[in-house]
């Protein structure tokens, strides 16, 4: 009998997923580097010679690249690798889904369960999550096809493993699977060394892997994860119970939660904001301010794709991802000044921040603020 909640490919499935991971690595690094070199050494100088000025805008860069076969190759391979990724994880999910749902039901009903899961009568999910296949995941985050469905979360979890394995992290196991949560916990300690959080809220917790990291980093704290996609909330609860960790999970809209004012000492999220609309950014940050206790910290991590940090060629590729590859909100999010958004939500200007922090070779955008002691 399946004993834990999680994505568990067998030999050929794992080999297929590993190939997709390697293919994505080749396209994202090898082909992108070739494309950037082409742009810098031929296309940009050619434009300068012809037009008498440098390529200055995203539109100009796109026009200059349009029709070049290497750009088409990059686009076609990126698109296809995304299709293959979802196909390859679906195979494992189809084979294991019934046992995973059985296991979830057993864990959720176990008398000795550590935490609880709270679901609504009707989904709280709304546009854009409700109307978009984010990452082009078939069925999106919230499609359900059976009672107590976990399918969307199993597939998503499989792709996270696929990327992790492609980068040589935690191959064949779950080592380091909460590493981003641990990283955020470390940044929280750095930004608020005096804070010993008793209550932590993880917004947009997804599969809950990183939420478990907060419980491991702050074992004395009560940790709650919320997400608007029900299959993910179930999966997160099942995962926590599989690991014997006491966390609570609930289906909630981060912009409109059920918690009383000043419920949490630490409120975090990981790559949630770039999957919301601009309008929801304000709702979520205002909710953070309402939920934060005096002395507490709000700390959100997201993509570092602000245009002033990226060369034009990278902006072209990101804009392509927005149009074609299920990342409809990268651009809208990246155009916002998140420190100003945080201040607009009620935080004091001198306690709000928008920063960048490195985790190994990766850099992430952090934003949030503290609430002064009362």
């Amino acid at each position, binding site marked *: 009998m399946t004993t834990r909640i999680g994505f568990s490919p067998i030999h050929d499935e794992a080999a297929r997923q590993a190939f997709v991971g390697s293919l994505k690595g080749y396209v994202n690094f090898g082909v992108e580097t070739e494309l950037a070199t082409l742009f810098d050494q031929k296309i940009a100088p050619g434009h300068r010679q012809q037009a008498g000025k440098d390529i200055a805008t995203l539109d100009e860069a796109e026009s200059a690249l349009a029709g070049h076969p290497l750009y088409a190759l990059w686009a076609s391979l990126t698109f*296809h690798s995304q299709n293959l990724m979802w196909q390859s994880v679906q195979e494992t999910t189809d084979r294991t889904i019934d046992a995973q749902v059985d296991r979830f039901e057993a864990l959720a009903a176990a008398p000795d369960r550590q935490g609880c899961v709270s679901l609504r009568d009707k989904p709280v999910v709304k546009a854009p999550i409700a109307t978009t296949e984010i990452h082009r995941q078939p069925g999106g985050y919230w499609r*359900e096809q059976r009672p107590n469905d976990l399918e969307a979360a199993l597939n998503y979890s499989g792709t996270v493993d696929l990327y992790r394995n492609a980068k040589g992290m935690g191959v064949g196991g779950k080592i380091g699977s909460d590493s981003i949560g641990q990283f955020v916990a470390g940044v929280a300690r750095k930004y608020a060394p005096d804070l010993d959080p008793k209550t932590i809220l993880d917004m947009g917790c997804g599969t809950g892997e990183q939420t478990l990291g907060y419980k491991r980093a702050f074992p004395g704290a009560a940790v709650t994860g919320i997400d608007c996609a029900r299959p993910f909330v179930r999966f997160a609860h099942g995962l926590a119970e599989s690991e014997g960790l006491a966390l609570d999970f609930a289906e909630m809209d981060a912009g409109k939660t059920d918690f009383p004012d000043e419920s949490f000492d630490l409120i975090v999220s990981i790559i949630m904001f770039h999957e919301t609309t601009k309008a929801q950014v304000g709702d979520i940050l205002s909710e953070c301010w309402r939920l934060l206790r005096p002395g507490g910290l709000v700390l959100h991590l997201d993509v570092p794709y602000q245009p002033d940090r990226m060369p034009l060629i990278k902006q072209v590729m990101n804009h392509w991802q927005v149009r074609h590859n299920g990342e409809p909100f990268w651009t809208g999010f990246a155009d916002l000044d998140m420190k100003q958004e945080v201040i607009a939500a009620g935080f004091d200007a001198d306690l709000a921040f928008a920063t960048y922090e490195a985790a190994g070779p990766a850099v992430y955008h952090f934003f949030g603020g503290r609430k002064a002691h009362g």
Partner: protein
Amino acid sequence: MADSKADSGEIEPQIGSETRFPAGPKPGERDTAFFKDPMTDHLLRAVVTLAMETSVTRERLRTLEALLEKAGSLEAGNADNYQPDAAEAAYRAGQRSKLIDDILGPIVSRLARED
């Protein structure tokens, strides 16, 4: 603490009239083309998919040979002289057909939708 089982239990009819489960967002395109001639995209993707299956097979063979060698049950020439029985031969024929359909099927169904 909420009663998890009760909370997670019944799902009522919600979105989409033909299903009692949340239907998810409308499916997006899966075969968008980027080259001038879409056939280039389709053939490129067929080749990549084929390469993936070759990669999987190679890994499988290496796994099997490693296991057999470890168990001391593989001798040189055994695989070369192997003759499948009727059931095994039929299975292999089915798998070959599926592989061909996996590679060429998406192109055929895409082109079949052309006016």
